């Protein structure tokens, strides 16, 4: 992405050679400077990538844990939205019964967190956390309000595009993924170092949800869909349940 007027010390030019990998020492994201490891990563034997990870099928998930709009006596302010999609592996196979955790700012762009003190209102009816397990087809579904954009101290007049944080486990230990889901057409995309730390523009699009009229609820909620694709874990991982 080259946008006139964008400081290239904040947002580096596109580089499709990165593919889906994020550049972990991205200079425009200030917090990486003292935190991104500098030594080369050590390669593990291939079989390590096949080891199973934790399974959370026994977690006591409440029936409203997927609905961020019904966790308090009143309803939160903002645009009510349904966010749904599937969790898949690279071969397109659904990852069933896997834990999906989300967290987000409220409609005003404020997190229910003591560290976030920027001058936007908290919403007494919104904590911004949800969780669910995927169903047999790998589907997840949340009901929430659209989060607002918010300023952060990374550089002068820095704003994060609206996003929802996602944490997913998958099946193999190394399928673990923490990422952020964005909303289509956000005008802040060209200016955000975190979004642009994925330097391949096609891969960035994989973090952007799609407005989906078919999932909207008339008179009630807009809808966005977003599929999450996890690595294989290992090429040879058997998926006996799919046999």
């Amino acid at each position, binding site marked *: 992405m080259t946008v006139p007027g964008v400081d290239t010390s904040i947002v580096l030019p596109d580089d499709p050679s990165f593919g889906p990998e994020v550049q972990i020492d991205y200079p425009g*994201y200030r917090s990486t400077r*003292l935190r991104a*490891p500098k030594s080369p990563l050590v*390669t593990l034997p291939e079989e390590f990538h096949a080891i199973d990870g934790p399974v959370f099928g026994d977690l006591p998930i409440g029936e409203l844990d997927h609905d961020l709009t019904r966790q308090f006596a009143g309803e939160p302010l903002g645009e009510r939205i349904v966010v749904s999609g599937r969790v898949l592996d690279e071969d397109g196979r659904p990852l069933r019964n896997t834990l999906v955790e989300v967290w987000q700012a409220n409609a005003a762009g404020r997190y229910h967190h003591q560290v976030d003190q920027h001058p936007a209102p908290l919403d007494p009816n919104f904590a911004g956390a949800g969780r669910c397990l995927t169903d047999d087809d790998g589907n997840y579904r949340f009901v929430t309000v659209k989060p607002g954009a918010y300023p952060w101290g990374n550089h002068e007049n820095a704003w994060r595009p609206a996003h929802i944080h996602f*944490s997913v486990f998958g099946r193999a230990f190394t399928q673990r993924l923490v*990422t952020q889901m964005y909303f289509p057409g956000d005008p802040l995309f060209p200016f955000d170092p975190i979004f642009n730390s994925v330097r391949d523009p096609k891969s960035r699009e994989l973090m952007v949800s799609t407005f989906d009229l078919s999932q909207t609820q008339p008179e009630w909620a807009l809808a966005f869909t977003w599929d999450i694709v996890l690595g294989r874990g290992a090429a040879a991982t058997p998926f006996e349940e799919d046999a």
Partner: protein
Amino acid sequence: MTLPKTPSQTVGPYYTIGLSPWSRNELASPADPGALRLHGQLLDGERQPVGDGLVEAWDRVGRRWGRSGTDADGRFSFVVVKPDGSGGEAPRLDVFVFARGLLRHQLTRIYFPGEPANDTDPVLSALSEDERSTLVAEPEDGALRFDIHLQGDDQTVFFAH
């Protein structure tokens, strides 16, 4: 058909909203006769504490998992039992580290001190002495200590994943 993978993004400074409701740092009951406290600090390139990090630990043999956020001093802690070794591998925990400023989580391992199998473990024994020392916990007052250095001369070994 191969689908393109969804890229990683940082866990950010507010992860406790979504990930701490199920914070459980006990991979074993403290009442277990083999229970050990395992604790340490997550430190940045200036050896300052990372106060908004998250450490997840997995014992693949015993199928025990836990996560611990770091406090203002960068401290995390777990209750663990030493996992069994397996197939020539020394007992270990597989560990992911998350933090603001880490655009992707980092993978490391915690090995246990004084284990004869440490000398023959295929991963540990392939490392230099200095590298190896970053992956083996140290006994400390009846507990185990394992600091994680994200950068620096004594950077913890991280693995590709």
